[in-house]
């Protein structure tokens, strides 16, 4: 489809002006998106860079902006991500393997599938309410880091399941058939052939889901993350705070200094997110290409 060739045959003159205007509009829209991203990131860097230091990572929260740091929030976030990964990865990958490799293609499977896609669209704060009712109250885990991690698990589970299913689906059927032909059982086929082959895709999905969990604040606030936690969590039943919650608290205050702190906290959070994404890209690049069918 050669543009210039076609234009030669476009004789209607009225078509020309909207053609150009429309393309200009679409191009401007695209540039707006790019520009917005650059402005947003630039603004955060300008506001936060003077406040970012190694000390900032090591200090406890404080009422005085110059003494405040993100130690508890940082450790809280690491705890939350670690626990969430521990709970959500086996569950999510297990569910995906069941749906792709085991489940008969019947209405029950269709129902689960529909349910998972809908769960992916449920607002995260609703998961917070579920966490409050289920983990904090009914199971009496209280406002602990365990409740927080379990709630985040529910938030990211649909994402992990959908990404893993995508990865499993990309493994060609011939691999499974050859394994069966050699006498392998279903689980042996999955464990020794299908899972290793789809691992890069699954890893990418898991990392993206966990970076979502890292940035999530709403469900944690409902579950009861604390505004002020002066110590680093040491066991599952400890109170907790996390980076996004700390940022939220600082942003909500009227004093300008706290906004700079929030920007510095955002920079730390964004660095973490970007490095996680970089790992995902690396995994996809390095291991994704090694498999050839």
């Amino acid at each position: 489809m050669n543009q210039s060739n076609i234009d030669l045959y476009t004789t209607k003159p009225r078509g020309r002006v909207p053609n150009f205007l429309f393309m200009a509009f679409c191009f401007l829209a695209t540039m707006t998106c790019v520009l917005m991203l650059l402005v947003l990131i630039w603004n955060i860097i300008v506001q936060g860079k003077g406040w970012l230091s190694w000390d900032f990572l090591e200090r406890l929260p404080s009422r005085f902006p110059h003494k405040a740091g993100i130690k508890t929030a940082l450790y809280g976030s690491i705890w939350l991500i670690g626990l969430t990964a521990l709970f959500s990865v086996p569950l999510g990958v297990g569910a995906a393997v069941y749906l792709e490799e085991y489940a008969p293609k019947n209405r029950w499977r269709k129902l689960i599938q529909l349910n998972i896609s809908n769960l992916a669209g449920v607002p995260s704060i609703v998961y917070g309410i579920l966490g409050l009712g289920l983990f904090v109250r009914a199971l009496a885990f209280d406002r602990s880091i365990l409740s927080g991690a379990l709630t985040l698990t529910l938030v990211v589970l649909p994402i992990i399941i959908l990404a893993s299913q995508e990865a499993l689906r990309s493994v060609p059927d011939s691999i499974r058939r050859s394994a069966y032909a050699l006498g392998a059982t279903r689980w042996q086929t999955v464990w020794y052939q299908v899972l290793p082959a789809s691992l890069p895709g699954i890893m990418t999905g898991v990392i993206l889901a966990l970076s979502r969990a890292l940035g999530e604040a709403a469900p944690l606030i409902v579950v009861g993350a604390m505004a002020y936690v002066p110590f680093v969590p040491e066991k599952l039943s400890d109170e907790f705070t996390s980076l996004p919650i700390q940022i939220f608290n600082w942003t909500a205050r009227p004093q300008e200094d706290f906004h700079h702190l929030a920007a510095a906290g955002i920079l730390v959070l964004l660095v973490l997110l970007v490095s996680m994404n970089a790992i995902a890209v690396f995994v996809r690049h390095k291991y994704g290409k090694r498999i050839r069918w």
Partner: protein
Amino acid sequence: MTDERSKEEQSIEMELGEAAAMKLPRSTSLERGDGLLVRLRPFYEGLIHFSLFICASISVLVTVGIVIVLLYESVQFFFDVSIIEFLTGTRWTPLLKPQHFGILPLMCGTMLVAGGAAIVAVPIGLGTAIYLSEYASPRFRDIVKPMLEILAGIPSVVYGYLAIVFVSPIIQYLFPSAGVFNAASACIVVGIMILPMIISLSEDILQSVPLSLRGAAFALGANKFEVTVRVVVPAALSGIIASFLLAISRAIGETMAVTLAAGATPKLTLNPLESIQTMTAYIVQVSQGDTPTGTVEYRTIFAVGLTLFISTMAMNIIAQYILSRVGEAYE
């Protein structure tokens, strides 16, 4: 003598050993250990099958859990507050005396933010999707798409920060009557948040329109603009609308940005320069305080959560239904 014989025997033994090793590398293990494994295999496989089934069932249990938790507390809430007052009341002051439990102000705030976000995001999003799908060179697309992915990966609390520190001062400068907290800044940042979703979904849909349709239109003498606007976009329209629905549903459920940007004054207004409160922001407000469990105030968050869940779920289901039928038209 003994030495020689033993050497011979040794060599014979070695040979035998080697031969044995070559012919049946794991004969003994096959007879003993694996035999047991083979006999246990159906049990073992069944166990794995069952545990994977449990994993998959958890997603259903989560949905059931959401519904049960929301309904359980909401029903108790509706013992205290009549459902008619809840749905039609125009004042929402559950935390103040006298208490009023009309959810309309919260609904109105939510719709104002979602609608405003859509006004910001829909033209820009659709324009970008069309540019990337129809006009852009592959190289340009390879540069812009990762940038949009970054935009999609920024946590919502960061957008809240930007609304307060960056967008709100601009709005106050342009419209001096606006407060620090206003619905307009929330609309803008939520609009930016849902942009990547609209773009990537719509672009996928536009790309899926078969080339033959475009070719046929070109062959009839249409130019690029006519092909795009009269053929490609209409062909993809249902999918594009589904992407709008999903994005708006996301805007309805969006929490941190609107909590920070729009303020906490539930108000029945459509003026974007005023401070309002959304359903999600209300839930955050109550969660931050220490409302005792079991009170009416505590139960309001479940009733509001139920309203939120129903409205987003309905939009998602409609969008999923439309998306599941996209593509059938060409087959």
